């Protein structure tokens, strides 16, 4: 563990109060943005809901990549499993209550997280990356082959969620789905702030810095990381379930390598190792994608590539990380 982490563990009551303030500030920023989005794009709530679901995926990726240092290009496996779990529960078992579907998605995500964590954490470096890529392809092929359950390449259609809590039906404009998504995101965000700051979260960051020292201290890096993978699976599964409920269809693209790579790009664009960074990256990337791919779909890939190279060269900490560093320096200078 580095000095910084030790220091953070020994934070004073004042520091804790300040963090609580930042939590509330973050929460109010999310809700503020949600209301602004609702007012600015009342006809494009589907995009905003999709953004919320992807934000959950990126948050979940941040837990394992940003906080535990696991390099993975296969994180959509957790998201897609959650989406399919919720969809299959609705189509094949008649569980159409949105909250129960959400629970199914979370459960599916946890199981997928356990599976992926157990496999991916067996290796480090390049083999780890290759394992994660092989896993996402395996999940994709499996979902494609199990067509009687998943609908194969046609996608799983016919998901008809009941009204939320018995009152709020999922309307054509996606208002209910949007509010549902934002509330879900706010709850998850609050819980994750607590998880990340807990002794368990500190342990994960310690493992990222130096796993051998953590083992010498008596903790098991492997077990801790698998637990974190399961939490991450729950978050990604919730995102997948939200996507299934709001779009009422689950496609194979939710289990694709492209989605995994894109979520990693969003995370790094915003800044790893910070929940705010994950949210910033998602919002910026998806708006950018929406505008550019509407204007000229051919140049979309070139633009993403150039954006990635630029971020690596000029803002290695990501957008949020760079802004936060500049703000901290400014505060220091003023003092």
């Amino acid at each position, binding site marked *: 563990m580095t000095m910084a982490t030790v220091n953070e563990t020994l934070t004073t009551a004042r520091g804790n109060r300040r963090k609580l303030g930042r939590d509330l500030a973050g929460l109010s920023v999310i809700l503020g943005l949600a209301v602004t989005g609702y007012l600015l794009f009342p006809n494009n709530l589907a995009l905003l809901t999709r953004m919320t679901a992807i934000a959950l995926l990126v948050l979940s990726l941040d837990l394992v*990549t940003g906080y535990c240092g696991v*390099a993975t*290009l296969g994180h959509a496996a957790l998201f897609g499993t959650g989406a399919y779990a919720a969809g299959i529960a609705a189509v094949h078992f008649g569980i159409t209550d949105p909250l129960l579907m959400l629970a199914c998605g979370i459960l599916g995500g946890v199981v997928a997280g356990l599976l992926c964590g157990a*496999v991916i954490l*067996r*290796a*480090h*470096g*390049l*083999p780890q*990356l*290759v*394992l994660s*890529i*092989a*896993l996402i*392809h*395996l999940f994709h*092929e*499996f979902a*494609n*082959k199990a067509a009687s359950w998943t609908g194969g390449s046609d996608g799983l259609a016919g998901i008809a969620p009941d009204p939320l809590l018995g009152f709020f039906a999922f309307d054509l404009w996606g208002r209910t789905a949007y509010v549902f998504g934002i509330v879900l995101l706010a709850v998850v965000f609050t819980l994750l702030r607590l998880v990340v700051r807990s002794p368990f979260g500190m342990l994960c960051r310690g493992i990222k810095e130096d796993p051998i020292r953590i083992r010498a201290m008596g903790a098991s890096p492997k077990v801790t990381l698998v637990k974190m993978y399961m939490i991450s699976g729950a978050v990604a599964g919730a995102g997948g379930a939200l996507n299934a409920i709001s779009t009422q269809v689950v496609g194979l693209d939710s289990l694709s*390598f492209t989605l995994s*790579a894109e979520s*990693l*790009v969003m995370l*790094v664009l915003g800044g*790893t190792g910070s929940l705010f960074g994950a949210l910033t990256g998602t919002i910026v990337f998806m708006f950018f994608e929406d505008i550019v791919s509407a204007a000229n779909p*051919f*140049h*979309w*890939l*070139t*633009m*993403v*590539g*150039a*954006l*990635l*190279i630029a*971020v*690596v*060269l000029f803002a*290695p900490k990501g957008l949020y990380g760079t802004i936060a560093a500049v703000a901290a320096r400014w505060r220091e200078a003023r003092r």
Partner: protein
Amino acid sequence: MQTVFSIAVDALAYGMVLFVISIGLSVTMGLMRVVNLAHGAFAMIGGYIASYAARDMGLGYGIALMIAVFGTILIAIPIERLLYRRIYGAPELTQVLMTIGITFCIIGIANYVFGPTLKTIPLPTGLQGSVDLGFRSIATHRLFAILCGLAVAAVLWYAIEKTAFGVKLRAAVDNAAMAAALGVRTEIVYAVSFAVAVGLAALGGVVGAELLPVEPYYALRYMVTFLVVVSVGGAGSIPGALVACLLLGGIDTAGRYLVPEFGEFFFYLAVIAIVCVFPRGLAGRTR
């Protein structure tokens, strides 16, 4: 019997093409510790240049091959100077992002310049048709790919094991700082091996164009396969890469022939099993 024979020939040809393309990746990864996801993009550039030279300019296959190899190296040099230099020794995540960014850019540009259609490289008459082996006949092109792979393996083995440059290269792979202290110009070793790696990728892209068709998403589609080969073989090991290519080529081809409805399911299952059992690759050294 006939099926077994065709599977064996196809697997051998496929494995050799994989070998030619990914051996450069394996050497640079063992040498510079760069996770280079853009390697497939260089193979794709080679394929595009050869296709343009042979089909649109009407040059011969051999000349087109040479133009492709040297043209790709020329394109790669500024990329190495400007972008790769910055990520030597950087954390893996940074390298992955940078090289994936380069791959996306190359795909986008290739799509813009050459269009989204498949590009073919017309074969010379000598490589069309098939060769009679007495009991069976095999496509001449497959045979050519296999021979290319064997030739590349032999030349590389000789260059690395028997020449002065090979000694310096192995020293730099084992301990770059120590080799530099002993007077090896590691910068030059790096630059030369990068150029050779890119050239080999282009060669593989051209020779293997019949098996791995050249189109804009080539770089992304086969990126995983090349990485898997290197990871299974162990970075920096020629025998390891050769064994991994033949093994994975065999599994993939057999899977396609025998259970085509499962696609690449068995390929990825085998990859996960091998990487889990040998986390450092088949010929990986313990560090």
